[in-house]
């Protein structure tokens, strides 16, 4: 009875979580240009359109470029900071950690508006790279958190042994620390990449009037009516997002990343 009830509860929540995705997936396979569920006919036409229609393709490329570069910049900012905090006794540097976590904790509209006023005042408003920096700062929290966790999991006696054998700081980092921290670099990058790919408001407020990322394009298109192409884009997003997290889970320790064990273990 107890087992049955808990299974039932999990199943109900599962249905709630899956329902919109199931419907959108069904709609994306419609043959005609209408949103019918269950789908009428079967066609992959709407998926093909994302790659053949120049506007959708441009938005797709803009989104991927933004995500690839901003996630890389986020890691480049987070890695030295996390290393420094782990390697040195520097209480004042905690301020930067706090700054790194702040944009992600506050409502996104605040970061978005901050960047809008900043780029407008400095005269760079609308440049494509402004969105890269905005996303890197907005999502720096993710690599910062995974890397801090990664560094805390390194056994200090390993680096101490290397130092005793005569390795300098750089050699220790390259031969001992980096191989141990690499999975956390990858997962931090992956988190930032996926979130940047899906992000709307910061991208919209920085470059929205000049170019379209995929989420911006979908939202703009919503005003002119719903099409199965949007459903296909949604399915693509769900698939990419789930695949990235699936890979993190496959090659990393997801429960640990999510805090299943205390950082001191």
């Amino acid at each position, binding site marked *: 009875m107890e087992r049955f009830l808990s299974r039932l509860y999990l199943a109900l929540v599962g249905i709630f979580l899956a329902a919109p995705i199931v419907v*959108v997936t069904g709609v994306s396979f419609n043959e005609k240009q209408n949103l019918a569920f269950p789908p009428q006919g079967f066609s992959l036409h709407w998926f093909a359109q994302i790659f053949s229609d120049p506007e959708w393709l441009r938005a797709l490329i803009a989104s991927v470029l933004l995500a690839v570069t901003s996630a890389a910049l986020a890691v480049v900012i987070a890695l030295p900071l996390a290393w420094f905090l782990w390697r040195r006794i520097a209480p004042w540097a905690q301020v930067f950690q706090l700054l790194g976590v702040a944009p992600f904790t506050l409502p996104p509209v*605040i970061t978005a508006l901050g960047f809008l006023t900043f780029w407008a005042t400095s005269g760079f408003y609308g440049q494509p790279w402004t969105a890269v920096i905005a996303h890197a700062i907005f999502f720096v929290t993710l690599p910062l958190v995974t890397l801090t966790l990664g560094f805390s999991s390194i056994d200090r006696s390993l680096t101490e042994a290397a130092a005793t054998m005569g390795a300098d700081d750089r050699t220790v980092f390259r031969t001992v620390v980096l191989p141990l921290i690499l999975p956390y670099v990858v997962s931090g990058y992956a988190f930032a990449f996926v979130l940047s790919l899906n992000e709307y408001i910061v991208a919209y407020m920085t470059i929205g009037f000049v170019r379209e990322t995929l989420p911006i394009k979908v939202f703009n298109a919503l005003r002119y009516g719903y099409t199965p192409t949007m459903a296909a884009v949604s399915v693509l997003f769900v698939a990419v997002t789930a695949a990235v997290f699936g890979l993190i889970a496959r090659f990393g320790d997801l429960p640990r990343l999510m805090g299943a064990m205390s950082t001191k273990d």
Partner: protein
Amino acid sequence: MRREPARGLVQHLPVIFPGLMLTIFFIVPFGTMVAVSFFRRQQGGFYVPDFVLANYARFLTPFFGNVLVFSLYLAIAVAVVSLVIAVPFTYLIARSRRQTQVIWLVALLSILSLSEVIIGFAWSTLLSRTAGITNLLVWLGLMGAPQALVPSFEAVLTGMVYQAMPYAVLVLYPSMVRLDPTLTEAARTLGASPLKAFFTVVLPALRTTLIATLIMAFIFALGSYLLPQILGRPSHWTLSVLITDQALYQSNMPFAAAMAVFLVLVSLALVALTMFAGKKLEA
């Protein structure tokens, strides 16, 4: 290698780039926004440096008051509903096999990362007349004709719970997983039913986490921007929507900035409250 204080320029080098980036691209934009909130707006959408409180004075208008009250009400509703669903759910997955946990975590992370645009589009399709859930009810004979359930307050609430619930689960998850299983076992041995053990042992043991999760979910919901627009009517617009609308379409940056500063203060006060509550309950 023991931790040592950094000495000289070379040892400080690693912190310079991240420090500069965060200062220039977070502190300065934030400061710019605060400054603009005191600037004076001119006709034609421009603003000039000044120190006026007129933008903050507009908070006293009924228009702003209505939006603020609605935003807070909606965020509280979303946070409470999300927590009520998330607590038993997290408890159950935290006690399941590791493999099962990983699958749920992947699903929750995926939904949490999913663009608000896509969640909004998916729910408005699910609640639409042509492809929506009412067709299922008609097919089952429970309803006469399919109906559109959007736009409505319930639709906004559902969409936002859909987004905030995975967030609440992931905030709860670490504490739930680390919860000592012998606590419930002891309660069971002493004759408590599973449900009674859950309510009298598990929940009280996690009260700090529960309060923290509620507040985090509340802040998360305050930030929702697209769902009220896609699933609701203009009367369901939140503070985040109003800020964007003022900044981009009404060209009133100073007023938008003033509202954003207000939103920051509310959020920070709540974060401080979470920490305070945590300390007090632990003491």
